[in-house]
């Protein structure tokens, strides 16, 4: 089978295979990007590359309150939920990774169990509870359910990262004359930061991409996030085909995630696979 690795024909075969994979993965992403740059007249011409380029679709969505409000909601809600989940998760994960106490394993198990819990099961009780408490259709009304799922995810991912940190360097630094604070700031914090950062990205992606909670627990522009606003999009007027505007909005919410993946691909993958592969 060594012949597979040599020869121009084999090289072409493998190159073709790469191409098939890349095309399958990318065509939908590129298609939606292409639609977002098309004029209304050429939207349905089926051309992959727009024949007439335009930024009108982007201008349309950024001039509607509906979209701008939703974007602010999305960013605010996802950032707050991520911050709370990561701070609480870091504390818990530090305890799990560094300290010995009974019930540690159970805790990791329970975190995983909750992170995998079917969100749809909590939608109707949350709807009922939030209406009673006046949290329905507010920012906290989405932030709280997001934390429920993001926090266990953060605890699990962070404890996997923290286990790999050579904590004894802290002692080594202190032996070399550093104070506790210096040892933490100069040695431990830089080692822990990438793990915390990666976890923050994963948690942010979870909150940012959510559709189920957002569509069930909101009812107005006050707290609707972009995925929900998108599903209600009808175009600037009711006679206008909203496809171009939806495409542009979809591109806008996908861009931050794509940037994360492009810049932090290796970190994200190592964070993701910590649940499946022993890192």
């Amino acid at each position, binding site marked *: *089978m060594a012949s597979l690795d040599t020869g121009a024909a084999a090289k072409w075969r493998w190159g073709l295979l790469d191409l098939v994979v890349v095309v399958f993965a*990318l065509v*939908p992403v590129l298609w939606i990007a292409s639609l977002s740059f098309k004029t209304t007249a050429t939207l349905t011409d089926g051309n992959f590359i727009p024949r007439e380029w335009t930024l009108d679709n982007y201008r349309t969505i950024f001039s509607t309150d509906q979209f701008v409000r939703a974007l602010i909601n999305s960013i605010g809600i996802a950032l707050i939920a991520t911050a709370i989940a990561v701070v*609480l998760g870091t504390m818990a994960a530090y305890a799990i990774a560094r300290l010995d106490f009974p019930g540690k394993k159970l805790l990791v198990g329970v975190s995983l169990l909750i992170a995998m819990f079917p969100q749809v099961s909590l939608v109707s009780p949350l709807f009922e509870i939030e209406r009673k408490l006046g949290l329905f259709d507010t920012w906290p009304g989405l932030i709280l359910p997001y934390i429920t799922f993001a926090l266990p995810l953060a605890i699990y991912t962070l404890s996997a990262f923290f286990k790999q940190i*050579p904590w004894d360097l802290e002692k080594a630094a202190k032996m070399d004359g550093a104070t506790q604070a210096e040892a933490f700031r100069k040695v431990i914090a830089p080692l822990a930061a990438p793990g915390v950062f990666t976890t923050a990205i994963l948690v942010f992606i979870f909150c940012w991409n959510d*559709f189920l909670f957002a569509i069930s627990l909101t009812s107005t522009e006050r707290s609707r996030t972009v995925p929900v606003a998108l*599903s209600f999009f009808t175009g600037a007027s009711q006679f206008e085909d909203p496809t171009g505007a939806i495409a542009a909005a979809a591109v806008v919410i996908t861009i931050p995630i794509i940037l994360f993946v492009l810049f932090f*691909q290796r970190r*994200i993958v190592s964070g993701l696979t910590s649940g499946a592969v022993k890192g």
Partner: protein
Amino acid sequence: MTTLTRTSEDVAAGPTTARRRPRRDRLPYLLLLPALLVIAVLLLWPLGQVVAMSFHELGIRQLRGDQPWPWVGLANYAEILGDPFFRTVLRNTVLFAAANVVLTMVLGTLVGLLLNRLGRRMAAFVGGCVMLAWATPALTGAIVWKWLFDDTSGLVTWLFNQLPDGLSLALFGRTDWTGYGWFNSPLTFFAVLTLVVVWHSFPFVAVSVLAGLKSVPAELQEAARVDGAGPWRVFWSVTFPLLRPVFGILVVLSTIWDFKVFTQQYVLAGGTQDRSTFMLSIYSYAMAFSPPPKFGMGSAIAVVLTAILLVVTGIYVRMVLRQEES
């Protein structure tokens, strides 16, 4: 970085590590307390509520005002489990999850193996492209796939129209695909939904398999190859046994995810009207939120779905913990 790691190992080997001062005993609990409290309140409250709701009859009037909730005991469960439609929904869910897990695993593994044999830069490029599919929000992905299958301007419709007429007629019994409703019959609907879900989930399997492959010595596969084993043999007698724990976890994880599919189905079906393609998640949601709302019934379905998934998740947690031990 390598020198850092080496120092740490040297220090770790030293005698100073294991001792803990008794003063510290309460520290882990103090650190855990906020997270535990938050999770307990945020999860257990709605969880208790969904179980309670499933024992009541909850219509729009009970939700609106201060009408008392009529207690119906297990009547909601009895109604669901006795309903032939529920059995159809359950069958749809199980078949869909099974098909999707198999396809995701096969495609993901193949791409993982492909990435493993590429050069570093090519692997980063192909891996990056594949990860974009993973990162695309479920909603965006579903919307664009719906457009790709649009019956007039969709790319897929165009592709099928490009097939030679004879071939298209022989395979599918039609030559003109313009106006073909991909989402009208359950079979083609599920086929498209499968494509969308597999597209979203194969990257995770691929990168996990790749990470697994990187963690086992390549020499074993090399040796098998030198001994004349073909790629099929090498995979099944060397690679697969080595990565068995990884594959086990990936299968269980995919099962959990594919059982919960909601967003993609909601978008492709255009809401909750198409009952013939219902699966458990959307059935539970539609029962509670489509008029007339039946929160009690919806909750009962949610409890059943949760019970099924807890069993699968329990298996997953045991596998992960066992792997961490070894």
